[in-house]
């Protein structure tokens, strides 16, 4: 290489190095990209986007499919945890239901003026339409007997039909063989606290189960329209009237709400025939109360009797 060519080469090198130095000075003083910068960015941007897309795609494939070696074991552990937690949750839910049912029973026991015994529902045969046909409870022949009434906090459930060993069958009030003496109560006329006063409008009848496979409906035939009507109240039974136990027949205590009049089937002027929808949702009953003995008869002097003075010494000083 001749000296002249070498000089030219080094001169060119010097000029080339001067170019970025000047460009840098210009760009620093300008502060914004030049038109050339913008044009080059516009040309190179798609290339960068494409390369980024490919690299991110490979990275995504790696992180989603290849780098999942430990995930299988972790997944198995999480599944086991999930299964255990589900079992725990089911057990807790069952316990919560039991506690709620027992609380209900405690309320019933406190409210009912008769000897009672709590029982847990352990079985419920269903109809093809998924209606409960009867209940099986965990009380046997050493504790209860047939025909004993069975109630919940919401009202009567039925009566003990068969007792065998440590278990018993309860037929529901919707069973055709069930019969309960009831009276009609106008919801607008609430019952008073006095014993034996059910707030009835006077109509009285016998509630019989319809035994339908698709509902728990009952009916009252020969519902007497004559009776002890409340002054100013219509003795005629209407849809929506409450049906409560009369307390007669020495089975259910008086005043338990059995259900509501759903439909007037017939009315011949003297008697009415109505269909009743029970208050108790038998499919949700988990615990019941069996009435061991009939409630004591109402005390006619309860209102007039004065409370006795406390004994000496028991009075607060």
């Amino acid at each position, binding site marked *: 290489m001749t000296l002249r060519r070498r000089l030219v080469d*080094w001169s060119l090198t010097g000029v080339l190095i001067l170019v970025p130095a000047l460009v*840098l000075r210009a760009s620093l003083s300008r502060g914004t990209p030049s038109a050339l910068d913008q044009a080059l960015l516009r040309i190179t941007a798609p290339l960068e986007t494409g390369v980024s897309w490919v690299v991110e795609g490979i990275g995504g494939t790696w992180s989603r499919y290849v780098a999942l070696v430990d995930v299988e074991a972790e997944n198995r552990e999480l599944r086991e945890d999930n299964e255990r937690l589900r079992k725990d949750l089911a057990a807790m839910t069952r316990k919560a239901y039991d506690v709620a049912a027992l609380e209900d029973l405690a309320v019933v026991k406190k409210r009912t003026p008769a000897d009672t015994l709590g029982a847990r529902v352990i079985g419920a045969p269903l109809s093809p339409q998924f209606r409960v046909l009867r209940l099986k409870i965990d009380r046997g022949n050493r504790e209860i007997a047939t025909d004993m009434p069975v109630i919940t906090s919401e009202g009567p459930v039925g009566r003990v039909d068969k007792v065998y060993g440590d278990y018993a069958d309860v037929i529901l009030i919707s069973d055709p063989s069930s019969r309960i003496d009831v009276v009609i109560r106008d919801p607008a006329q609430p019952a008073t606290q006095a014993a034996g006063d059910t707030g009835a409008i006077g109509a009285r009848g016998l509630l019989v189960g319809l035994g339908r496979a698709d509902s728990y409906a009952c009916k009252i035939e020969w519902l007497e329209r004559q009776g002890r009507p409340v002054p100013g109240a219509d003795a005629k039974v209407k849809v929506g009237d409450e049906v409560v136990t009369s307390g007669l027949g020495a089975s259910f205590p008086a005043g338990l709400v059995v259900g509501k009049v759903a439909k007037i089937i017939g009315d011949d002027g003297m008697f009415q025939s109505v269909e009743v929808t029970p208050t108790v949702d038998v499919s949700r009953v988990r615990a019941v109360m069996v009435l061991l003995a009939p409630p004591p008869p109402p005390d006619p002097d309860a209102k007039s009797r004065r409370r006795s003075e406390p004994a000496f010494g028991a009075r607060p000083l």
Partner: protein
Amino acid sequence: MRTATIVLTAYLLCVVVASTWRLLPWIGDAIPDVGALTAAYLGLTARRQVSPAIGGAIVLGYLIDLISGAPPGLIALVLALTTLVARAVQQRILVRGAAISIAFSAFVALVSGILALVVRGVYRMPSAAFSIELRHVVWVTLATAVLGPVVWKIFRRIDAAFARTHREREAALEGLAP
């Protein structure tokens, strides 16, 4: 044509590195300086004239300036100076073999980092605390040293493809300066 191919390949590598390193946050500052490696290779393999190597380094530096968001001209100037340093080294040592390649890659990355600091200082550009800048230079040097032999192998393949004779091709693959 050879220089243009190397510059274009280096530019693609820079884009790939920028895209890949973004997905690896644990890498931190350890980003290989592909621009410095390319400039050094151009300087090392410059034949009789140095100006084509300088021109290639400036073009590559300018493109890196654009994609990295640096002020246009900064990396171009740094890479041009790095090419000159590599050219000066080429006349004294033979860069051949993995160990020397790694060591020389670390050297050019260090030189490039220091030159960048100097240029920024000369142009009074804002910079971080000196300790942070130094730590950045060290991490970049380490990453460049690791990736250097691979990048140079690619460039040697390109050189071999442009060789006119079998002997030139063998020499290019061996890493011998033409």
